């Protein structure tokens, strides 16, 4: 395959699972279980990823060049098991920002139709 830089907008809209995974990696690299935990905590328990869903998404995102592997190392000092860490690529960062912007525009639209309270009005 020839490495061609894809258009971030071509990947939108993202599925909620993918969006959450990307968001969880914005702060830095994480291993798989850390992503699961972060997503569950950030969504208030609403989004719970099973290992199958998580790694299925990771596989596709690796193929799309949104994520990249950041090497293997133990999660805590003194632990035997090495965990594989993942981080966003530059493209990944663009994609997640583009999705956030897209959602923001949708929220604006909803506000304009008085579906939501305006910020500061409450």
């Amino acid at each position, binding site marked *: 395959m020839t490495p061609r830089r894809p258009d971030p907008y071509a990947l939108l809209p993202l599925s909620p699972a993918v969006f959450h995974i990307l968001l969880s990696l914005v702060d830095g690299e994480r291993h798989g279980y850390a992503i699961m935990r972060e997503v569950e905590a950030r969504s208030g328990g609403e989004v719970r990823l099973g*290992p*199958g869903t*998580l*790694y299925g998404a*990771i*596989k596709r995102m690796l193929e799309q060049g949104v994520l990249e592997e950041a090497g293997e190392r133990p999660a805590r000092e003194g632990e035997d098991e090495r965990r594989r860490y993942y981080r966003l690529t530059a493209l990944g960062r663009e994609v997640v920002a583009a999705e956030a912007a897209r959602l923001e525009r949708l929220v604006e639209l909803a506000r304009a139709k008085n579906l939501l309270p305006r910020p500061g009005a409450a």
Partner: protein
Amino acid sequence: MRGGGPGRRGRRLVAAGEAVYRALLRAYPRDFRSRFADEMALAFRDASRAALEAGRRRLAAAWLRFLLDLAATAVRERVAARRAGALHPPLHPTTRRGDPMGVLIQDVRHGLRALVRRPGFAAAAALTLGLGIGGTVAIFAVVNAVLIRPLPYPDPEQLVVLEHHAPGLNLPDLENSAGTIRLYRTHARSFSSIAVVNAQERNLTGGDRPVRVSVAEVSPELFDVLRVQPALGRRLLPDDAQPGGPRVAVLTHAGWSARFGRAPDIIGRVVEFDGVPTEIVGVMPEGFAYPSDETVALLPLWVDPNGPFGTFGLTGLARLAPGVTLESAAREVEQLQARIPEIAGDGGINAGFLERAGWSASVTRLKEEIIGDDVATALWVVLATVGFLLLVACASVANLFLVRAEARRKELAVRSALGATRTRLAAGFLSESVILGLAGGALGVLLAAVGVRALVAAGPAQLPRLHEVSVDATVLLFALALSVLAGLAFGGLPLPRYLRGPLVEGLREGRGDTGSRERQVMRKGLIAAQIALSLMLLAGSGLLLRSFQRLRAVDPGFRPEGVLTLGISRGERDGRNDPTGFYRRVMDEVRGLPGVQTVGVTNALPVLPRGINGSSFDIESRPRAEDALPPVAMFAVVGPGYFETMGIRLLEGRPMEPRDHEGEIPRYVWVSRSFARDFMEGRALGERVRFGTDPDWLEIAGVVEDVRMFGLDQDIRPMAYLTLNTRTVNVNLSVGQLVVRTAGDPMVLAPSVAAAVRRVAPDVPLTAARTMKQVVAESMAQTSFTMIVLIVAGTVSLLLGLIGLYGVIGYVVTQRTREIGLRIALGAAPGEVRGMVLRQGMALSLVGVAIGLAGALALSRLLESLLFGISSRDPLTLAAVTLLLVAASALAVYLPARRASAVSPMDALRTE
């Protein structure tokens, strides 16, 4: 961390789950697996451990989620891999050896297709298995919660209960007195701490109307013994339990939830127990249920360090010191009994007295004490029962498989001719049966989830720890293992028969089917086994049924029909405040209701007694020698009209009259037939007796019929009936049971009776009204529960066995049509042919019956403790069950036999 965290068992559970998960990961395509399987297993382990911290229920939920996640995404990845593969087809067809999972998937797919082709067969097999697995899993959930799972306290095996026994005094089980506690606290080295507990009921006033609640007075050591600290506030401290100390209480979580809606500001609130203002200082964590599920609060108990030896009734709960075994603790306690005379101090208690009383002490593990031998036996019997049923179900399905094998010989032959190895063929069959097993297991878990709820709702109230029963991770793992094992068992059993011998034989037309005879032998063996198991189950059901009948035929000594009872809780303080006047006003009000015939009151109902006490007594005319054992009787307090209302016959003397209950000083007492017989050679009238340390000599004014106070299956014990104005200190007058004899259905009157009591005593808690028949039924609940499970299992297994028998004999007849036709053509009468087939079928069933009888006799001892008034080898029951099975199998055989005798010789020969 409560309970010391998930612990070793928890880690093992997670490790087992991870192993299963790793195996299941093979459902993903190879490429995906090689990249992510290790990572996924790690994530699974981390997530499982985190879930376990929040409890096993949470773990079960997480695993269920992961399983669904795996199933859905594995399919997705496989589809994706195939699409990718279709774009770049491999140069060589998949090398099977390199991807065993691919082969397995193919086998599974093949198995699924085979099952889908015959949905009736698949549904019948899955349903049969589902019933068997569901029953087994449901009962296992109960056994797991009640018998296997440890008590929810740290190092629960160190918790023991101290008890005493004095059979010579007619007191087989005594708990502890201040004296025995002093003895052990001073001298015993086996215990790190000893707590004293006294379960009671109190009227709790916190809201608008007082309620009757269970509480426990506990010595502050309880928190050290159980090693559980409050979730909120503080524990009870030694200062709380001093005479004149602060009035404080620690609520249980259940009490906090039910009575105070989990109010966060509960600490410091003042409520009233029996009218005594009490400050709430703490709340125990969720799951703490000691001494019972119903306990609402723990109140401080002061044990007088100089208290008497002779007043028993305190529960002694201790924790073994580190390294001390139950046996060595029991030895030490037994040795300490020799020091009782020096502890007792008061007169008459010397070594000779103890010996004549048959005095002994025992140390029992708390778990055994909570559960009790009878419950454990009943549960194991029920689990064995459903286990048998599962075996029968497996045998049935194995038989279905054998029948199919006949039909599939040709398919097998073709596949083997095309190059399939025997291993591949076997894998195909096994994957088919394991799929069926898993389908049955899934159905079974659903049934079990429903069943567990029904069991918890319908289970006998005496079943301890019932609230802990649930389908948790352990139970799910058990179900999974059971399903796979069942699948392998019924799939593997017929396997050697399928695959032995030249498979290609199957391609030949005609009858040269050499394997057929062997397969018939195996099928017949399975049928005989089913009949044997059915007979064992039915024999058990029959024995329990007869016990139940005997139990119902026992004369309780009173007439429960048409009697309504209602508990009136006046509380400890009010109970002694003019009971005569109070109950007279209540009974007058109730007696005026239409439909009410007579009214009475007692502090202890027959059959399910609470608040009944025993006491030694003196007989005026027979002074006792200095060190002779005093006679001991049980006593209840009853009001006027009690004997008439309950239908307890007066044998001698005069009935109770209202004036007997009035006045400061009680003068009369009524006694039971066995009291008069055992202590006065039947001439009791006019004798005067004095109970315990009472001031009053009471004259026996009447003798009434014996009543089964302690349950229909319990021995009769001598009873004395005291009047409401009794001054005996031992008696508990806090709860009165109103008994009302009515003209029609007693429950119809329940609301108006309750309303009438409320008019007299608006602030007094009432318990729900019950009929005496309900009370009697409740006392038999454990027997009827075990019996119903056995009867259902026995009936289902009989049906499965009969269907199998019918199928086998019918098949034999079809196979032999030609031979039978020939016989008829050669002049055999239809009767002879019928006889021949019948003989063959019945021989099979009789073999099963014989094995079953032997098994039933061998297992009969298991049931012994559950039976009443009947031997576990009761010949009549065994004969009846045998007859039933023989008759039923005769019917199952007769139908094909009749078909055989109707064979037309011409048709039979033409089929060739």
